[in-house]
């Protein structure tokens, strides 16, 4: 979070200067340079996060900006700063009158935002979604950061690697009814049955998406199953909770800890050797790919029915139906976790 502060300050300074100098705006320059002599038209691409202050999306935006620089596109990054669910719609509607060429959106309210995105499409603006999808008729493509199977496989493969494909492990889930977590759990089990028959899942406990509960459940698991080799969390709050329990039980390194989560909230435990791995995707790549896709869609080089999509420095991506797949999840561990800040 710490680098956010100077960044915000710089933003304010820029805004203040813009206001002082009679608003020497990037908008007009974007419009004026629409047809620079001897060059292609500069595209304006708008990038909508679920919320603007969220470090996850700030990190996505970093990748988005890098992509825009490479493509020579003008990037607008704006999103809600207050909890009003109508704000995303208003921002998109403002972009429609602004006349942007393409919009890449992470949707907070699927049904609500689809209204505004459909309107944008009707005005000829190309729309793609990333991170969280809209209704399928409100966008051309969804940049899909991970499939349930991809997540399940990645979790189980990493668990097996840490345990040398042998031994007992327990699963901490958010709740036994949450649709996405149940789905991931199913794929973890499928992967185990298919590839690691010598590993055994001895318990699945729900922590109600509370860190404290994850900790107490893990403490109970550690005493119930003395031969437990690994705790695997399918909720981001499970990982630090389980880590605290393992550490307090004095089983650091003996019982391995792994799960889905954000690097920042796990860095401490990863460096202490309590947590061996945190699995998610590279958010910067997600933003980068989203902008490349929006740009290609606006230029007409990306069309429905395409099977492959090349995105600059990141190479080829697979398209399944109307989903552009970011690929396999990424494992943050002791060697690389300090390179990420979200």
């Amino acid at each position, binding site marked *: 979070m710490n680098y956010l502060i100077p960044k915000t300050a710089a933003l304010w300074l820029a805004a203040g200067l813009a206001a002082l100098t009679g608003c*020497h*705006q990037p908008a007009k320059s974007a419009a004026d340079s629409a047809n620079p002599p001897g060059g292609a038209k500069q595209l304006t691409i708008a990038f909508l996060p679920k919320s603007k202050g969220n470090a996850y999306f700030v990190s996505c935006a970093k990748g988005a900006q890098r992509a825009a620089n490479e493509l020579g596109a003008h990037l607008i990054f704006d999103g809600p700063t207050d909890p009003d669910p109508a704000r995303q719609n208003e921002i998109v*509607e403002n972009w429609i*009158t602004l006349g942007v060429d393409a919009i890449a959106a992470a949707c907070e309210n699927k*049904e609500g935002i689809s209204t505004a995105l459909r309107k944008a499409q009707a005005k000829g603006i190309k729309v793609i979604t990333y991170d969280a999808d809209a209704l399928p008729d409100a966008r051309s493509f969804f940049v899909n950061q991970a499939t349930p199977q991809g997540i399940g496989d990645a979790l189980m493969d990493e668990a097996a690697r840490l345990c040398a494909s042998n031994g007992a492990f327990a699963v901490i889930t958010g709740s036994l009814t949450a649709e996405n977590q149940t789905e991931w759990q199913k794929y973890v089990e499928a992967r185990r049955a298919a590839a690691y028959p010598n590993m055994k899942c001895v318990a699945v406990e729900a922590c109600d998406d509370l860190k404290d509960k994850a900790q107490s459940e893990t403490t109970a698991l550690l005493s119930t199953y003395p031969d437990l080799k690994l705790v695997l969390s399918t909720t981001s709050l499970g990982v630090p909770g389980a880590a605290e329990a393992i550490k307090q039980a004095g089983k650091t390194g003996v019982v391995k800890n792994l799960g889905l989560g954000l690097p920042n909230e796990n860095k401490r435990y990863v460096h202490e050797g309590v947590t061996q791995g945190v699995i998610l995707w590279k958010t910067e790549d997600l933003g980068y790919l989203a902008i490349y896709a929006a740009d290609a869609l606006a230029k007409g080089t990306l069309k429905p029915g395409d099977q492959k999509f090349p995105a600059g420095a990141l190479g080829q991506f697979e398209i399944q139906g109307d989903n552009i797949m970011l690929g396999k999840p990424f494992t943050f561990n002791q060697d690389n976790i300090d390179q990420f800040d979200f």
Partner: protein
Amino acid sequence: MGTFNKSSSTPVLLRHETILLGVLVAEWIFFDACGRNFGTYDNLCDLLRHSCEIGLLALAMTPVILTGGIDLSVGSLLGLCAIVFGKCWRDAGMPIPLAAACTLGVGALAGGLNAALIAWLRLPPLIVTLGTFSLFRGLAEAITHGVDTFTNFPASFLFLGQERWLGVPAQAPIFAAAMIFFWLLVHRTTFGRSFRALGFSPEGARYAGLPVARRVALVYVLAGVVAALAALIYTARLGQAKADAGTGYELFAITAVVLGGTSIFGGVGSVHGTLLGVAAIAVLHSGIAHALLPGELAGMLTGVLLILALAGASLAKQISGLRARKAARNMQQQTA
């Protein structure tokens, strides 16, 4: 000093509404010059659509504040009414007009609850509506467990929030009707005069024989009905009803009313001032987006605008008061 007006002792040019109109025009010229596609008719329509719900709440908030009260529950009530509407239509299978009528009824009932507690039990409005602020939002969340979302409304209903009718946004005629209703109520009826009297001095109003409780109750019931109306328009605009609808709208509405020159202590204020307040904030928000400035700036500048407008109005009043005293002194010296 020949410019005395029956409603104010401040000259027209120094009056709050005039200053605010100047600010609004300045905003418009500034953003039209440096924003992309700001001054277009399309954007004007979007401005109206985006500020319609908060505008409605601000209209209804004006008489509330005029009586010296406050209603913090309108944003939460908007959320509750959106849920009631969705529930009536989807789960109870009512046709849209009936569901809308039920929603307006619930709005009136909820406003009635505020009214009963404030007018008859004589509890402070700030405390009562702080309570119902939590109560209404809590009810909305309890009904939907926080996750149920109502969507797939028929196109004929969505028309109300998303389409144009005779070239103007479909909600514009409703807003105009509410505007005329509240303007007439506050400025052309004995009700309006009694609201001000109540704000100046509730005891005085009581001694003067005004039906204080009934008049106070009326403004809160109206606020409830208007919140329900805003919920219908909000649902049509977004195409979804969820328990978090209208979060924070009560503060936007109060800001617009106070920016419009209505005294937070009651007794002084106008409906056209409120409209200018709503417009000044809406233009600022839209202008900042169209000039591609960071959106956070809108919140900050709204605060600056509010403080400047209030300080400016206070200064203007002091200057004209000073002049009046000077004139009076000159007169005394001449006669002496």
